[in-house]
């Protein structure tokens, strides 16, 4: 009965959805055609600006190199993301159990977040082995949204439900498992969704910093290397792969979030039908 007022809203969304898919595709096609035309009509050289077709053929031709580099970058991203997810959630749980710990450490988590990672990366590369430094960069960037969102989620438990758990003498562990974690789940998943994209950014930033130091084999390093060699089509191809990787990461995490929350949370209900 309570879902009746929602029906018109959902219907509107349903009508709009084909347009929401078709319009961006149309814009993409128009943009690519315009790009190709500008390059061909003005006879622009590939080392200045390659057309989209050349970028695509370069990607196919250089697939072996690019694919290996992509895997390296994705592995870094994944490691950074996992450390950020586990660390962020674990630290938020600790903060939730102990106010003193939260007061002591939270400011430093903020400092870690607001200091630009591009400025930290060269320092980390001095003190840590290169692969470790790159993962740490990815972790630093991705860690804070998980921590902040999980903390927010753990603190937004319904007061009456908390009273109910108190009434039935729930142990701290039971309260955590049956009340706080489920209540925080939508927030945690939101934090993870942000963290996925950010850990890719952190990995790329660190790879570029490391690449200019002369080593590395990730996709961002390929971009820097191709730049030095004026292999502009490959730069574009690598960039394209990075965006696709970012989109796939986001879509996967959004899908996970939807599957987990679809049965009860408002954020997931709107996407159905």
């Amino acid at each position, binding site marked *: 009965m309570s*879902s009746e007022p929602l029906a018109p809203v959902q219907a509107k969304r349903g009508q709009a959805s084909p347009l929401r898919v078709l319009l961006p595709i149309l814009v993409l096609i128009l943009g690519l055609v315009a790009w190709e035309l500008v390059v061909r009509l003005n006879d622009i050289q590939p080392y200045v600006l390659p057309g989209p077709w050349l970028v695509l053929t370069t990607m196919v031709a250089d697939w072996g190199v690019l694919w290996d580099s992509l895997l390296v970058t994705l592995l870094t991203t994944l490691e950074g993301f996992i450390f950020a997810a586990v660390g962020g959630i674990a630290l938020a749980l600790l903060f939730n159990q102990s106010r003193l710990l939260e007061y002591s450490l939270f400011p430093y988590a903020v400092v870690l977040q607001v200091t630009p990672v591009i400025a930290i990366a060269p320092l980390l590369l001095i003190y840590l082995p290169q692969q470790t430094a790159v993962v740490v960069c990815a972790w630093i960037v991705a860690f804070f949204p998980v921590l902040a969102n999980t903390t927010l989620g753990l603190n937004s438990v319904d007061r009456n439900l908390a009273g*109910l758990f108190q*009434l039935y003498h729930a142990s701290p562990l039971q309260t955590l498992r*049956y009340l706080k974690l489920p209540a925080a789940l939508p927030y945690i998943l939101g934090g993870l969704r942000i963290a996925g994209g950010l850990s890719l950014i952190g990995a790329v930033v660190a790879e570029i910093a490391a690449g200019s130091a002369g080593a590395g084999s990730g996709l961002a390093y390929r971009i820097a290397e191709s730049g030095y060699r004026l292999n502009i089509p490959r730069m574009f191809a690598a960039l394209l792969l990075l965006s696709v990787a970012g989109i796939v990461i986001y879509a996967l995490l959004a899908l996970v979030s939807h599957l987990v929350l679809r049965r009860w949370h408002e954020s997931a209900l709107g996407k159905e039908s």
Partner: protein
Amino acid sequence: MSPPDTTSDSSAGTAGLAVRLSGVSKVYDSGVAALGPMDLAVKRGEFVSLLGPSGCGKSTALRLIAGLASPTSGTVDVNRGAGDARGTHAIGFVFQEPTLMPWADVAGNVRLPLKLAGMQASEADGRVAAALAQVGLAEFAKSYPRELSGGMKMRVSLARALVTDPDILLMDEPFAALDEITRFRLNNDLLALWRDLRKTVIFVTHSVFESVYLSQRVLVMSARPGRIAAEFRIDAPERGEEFRTSAEYAGFCRNVSAALAPAYEGQGA
């Protein structure tokens, strides 16, 4: 479904008291005196309403009885009976909001008190089913709270309070947010449950009509800090649509309203 035995005070006396408050007051940290001093004695199996204006401390009194807050002065005695010995709980609490966990289905919500008490799943299953049947929601066990109407959510909340088979049921304006038809139905269902199960019920409300319709005793509270300003015995064995439209009912309501009026003076409402 026999009518409630409202006349034999002696048998209720031997059954003893379920709840006793002596000189209980509550002052919040902010310095607001919310309640009291208040004295209250509720017999086992009795249906008592606490009636008063918003903010008079009636919800505070209920939270003190439930042990969700501790009194600033005075003592709260709750006869826990055999409740704790059964590994369950002596007190069931129904909040003003349904207060359901949105991530769990109806059965999961009702099961919560048993799960927290560490009861075996096999034993809990039967109790959950029985509690849902009591409130008429047996076929909604697998539904999620968002799929239910306001009245049904309240029934789930009631089933959750009943699932531990408590001796005392505390209800904090449970039907205040419902429409009138739904509220009447739930009032009748609550009375039927009370006749069957013989729980002690302490029912907080700001509705004169609801308090008179439901209870054996109506305690009218004054404005903050809340004290008991008047007490009415509602001696009417038969409760139903006939009682609701009777002159007797109207008379009770008129008297209770008159006693409640001073609590609203000076509030400008």
